[in-house]
């Protein structure tokens, strides 16, 4: 018996040693790579760019930013782009503190934030909001025997806040005369994690049906009723696998599920990339901002049937003038790339967002062009 026991203890020790060695080498590999930040070249030519570009912010942009980072790094081999999808709030905070060259954020800078100073920017200059990522939010459903579903904001608010509980409720029947709605409980699915998707969806409901949706929009779903699921894929999964389900998710993930047509004006509009881009392009800008600040006051109450009002707009927040000119050059080049037609198309393929419309692209190009 002794020999095998010894052998196994030796084996165990060697396994531990191997694991330790692995851990140590991986540590060393990380520490070994020198940080290249701040060594960006002054030359304006794109191929001469070098250095590290750090962005922090919204996870909604995560997939798009990864795509853009890869595309930009391929074109500029000496550049490293790091985007940390740690959340809009965290992004704005670290940008203000000077820890990031740009922030990704599902909401534009607030007036209070604009009144303060920005660590990354040259003293006494401000930051600007540039819309870079537009994503329509689809209301998806899975109800036996129902293919098309028309709903308005008040009914949607009633369903998701738990005030309308049956599929054959009079409010729903009134909007869907031809559909065979079952006499069954509505299972409404919302995001159980904090999310910009929830905030934008809630904002639409709150603006259009303030009597029903009384809670102010936030990243957390405000009501206790309904079913919670983690992440976009969790919601889509719950709607797909459950019975008599309805939920909201990034439109790119709707797949084969039924999609609700939302009442805009007196028509029912399904989501499309064009309709989403249109509502963003034709919404007014927030007043009282600098000329190049493109913070958009989304027109959720639009009555134009070519618009789809449930849309998430995510910004890149950058400086007007950078403290470090090299960083300015690098950020400008990166933002030029991501807002270009090629950049938007690349992201749309991977993340399924709606590319910026031609109108908005022009304004964005001017704004990005002003970055120093």
């Amino acid at each position, binding site marked *: 018996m002794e020999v095998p026991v010894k052998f196994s203890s030796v084996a165990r020790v060697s396994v531990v040693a191997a694991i330790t060695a692995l851990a140590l080498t991986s540590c060393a590999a990380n520490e070994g790579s020198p940080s290249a930040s701040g060594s960006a070249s002054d030359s304006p030519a794109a191929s001469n760019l070098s250095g590290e570009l750090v962005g922090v912010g919204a996870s909604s942009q995560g997939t798009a930013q990864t795509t853009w980072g890869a595309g930009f790094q391929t074109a500029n081999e000496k550049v490293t782009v790091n985007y940390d999808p740690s*959340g809009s709030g965290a992004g704005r905070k670290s940008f203000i503190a000077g820890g990031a060259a740009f922030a990704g954020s599902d909401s534009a800078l607030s007036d209070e934030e604009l009144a303060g100073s920005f660590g990354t920017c040259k003293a006494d200059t401000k930051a600007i909001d540039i819309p870079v990522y537009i994503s329509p939010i689809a209301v998806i459903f899975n109800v036996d025997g129902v293919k098309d579903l028309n709903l308005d904001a008040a009914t949607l608010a009633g369903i998701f806040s738990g005030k309308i509980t049956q599929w054959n409720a009079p409010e729903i029947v009134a909007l869907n005369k031809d559909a065979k709605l079952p006499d069954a409980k509505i299972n409404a699915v919302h995001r159980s994690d904090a999310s910009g998707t929830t905030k934008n969806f809630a904002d639409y409901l709150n603006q259009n049906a303030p009597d029903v949706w009384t809670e102010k929009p*936030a*990243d957390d779903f*405000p009501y206790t009723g309904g079913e919670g699921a983690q992440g976009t894929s969790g919601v889509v999964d*719950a709607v797909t696998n*459950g019975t008599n389900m309805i939920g909201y998710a990034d439109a790119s993930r709707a797949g084969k599920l039924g999609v609700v047509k939302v009442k805009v004006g007196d028509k029912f509009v399904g989501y499309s990339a064009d309709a989403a881009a249109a509502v963003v392009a034709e919404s007014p800008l927030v007043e009282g901002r600098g000329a190049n600040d493109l913070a958009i006051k989304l027109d959720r109450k639009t009555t134009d049937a070519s618009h789809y009002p449930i849309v998430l707009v995510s910004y890149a927040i950058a400086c007007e003038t950078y403290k470090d000119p090299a960083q300015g050059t690098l950020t400008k080049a990166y933002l030029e790339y991501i807002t270009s037609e090629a950049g938007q198309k690349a992201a749309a393929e991977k993340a399924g967002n709606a590319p910026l419309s031609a109108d908005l692209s022009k304004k964005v190009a001017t704004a990005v062009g002003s970055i120093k």
Partner: protein
Amino acid sequence: MTTQTERPKPVIRLGDRVFARSTLIAGSLILVALAAVAIFLIVEAIPALGADTTELKGSPSNFWTYVGPLAFGTVWAAFLALLIAVPLAVGIALFISHYAPRRLAQGLAYVIDLLAAVPSVVFGLWGIKVLAPAVQPVYAWLTDNLGWIPIFSGPVSGTGRTILTVAIVLAVMILPIITAMAREVFLQTPKLHEEAALALGATRWEMVKMAVLPFGRSGLVSASILGLGRALGETMAVAMVLSPSTVISFVLLQSENPNTIASNIALNFPEAHGTGVNVLIATGLILFVITFAVNFIARAIVARRKEFSGAN
């Protein structure tokens, strides 16, 4: 005195010293790590106690009303998991140690140990994709026919992602730990006790009841506590499977379930900022305290049972 001085000095080899030192270092390292975690939690949690919590989900009036349902959900889910896992684990362990033919027992033991190697995220996926849709019709039947029992009352969840499903997933996850320990303990039962019982004319079940179970009781409690510890802290699988809400409710089959602390941190940390982070860390501190309390209670039980366990 003289006899003592004449005695040869005990030889202390270098290896002895090195080994004694290294065990001392290893032992103190665990205390240092624990202290570091505790200090981090306390320091980061302090700002949360007076924080404005109206921004949090459900707009709770203060931190304690926020953490209450979470603490409840944590303990409730873990308790349910234990309720499912312990009887199963005892059965499996007894089968392996006393009933199964030797070959089958070994194979089965390996398979059970393999379960412990499955990452929790895989259990989460299994919970969403396989278990929840499979049990949903059962839940619907339960609410229709046994709905008069309060814990089975409706309306039933349309997806099956309820706290009972979470408890089943957790039970599967903690099963290998409890089974492995219980099996080892049962195998330690003195052969003489077992043979004496059989010789007195006991059937195999009576032998297990009289000799094996009393002997293994304290070990079984320790095993359950290890399992409970994992169930209390399990994050990923719960976050993926559970449909959470901010309620305190014993109901098993509805969409509104109390969330667990660990899962709530996982769900909200990625987008948290400002004092929101402190509040989440403070809930982590509460989980730390709960786990400690559970461990102390378990130790007390084990200590009290020791004298009756027949292990002496």
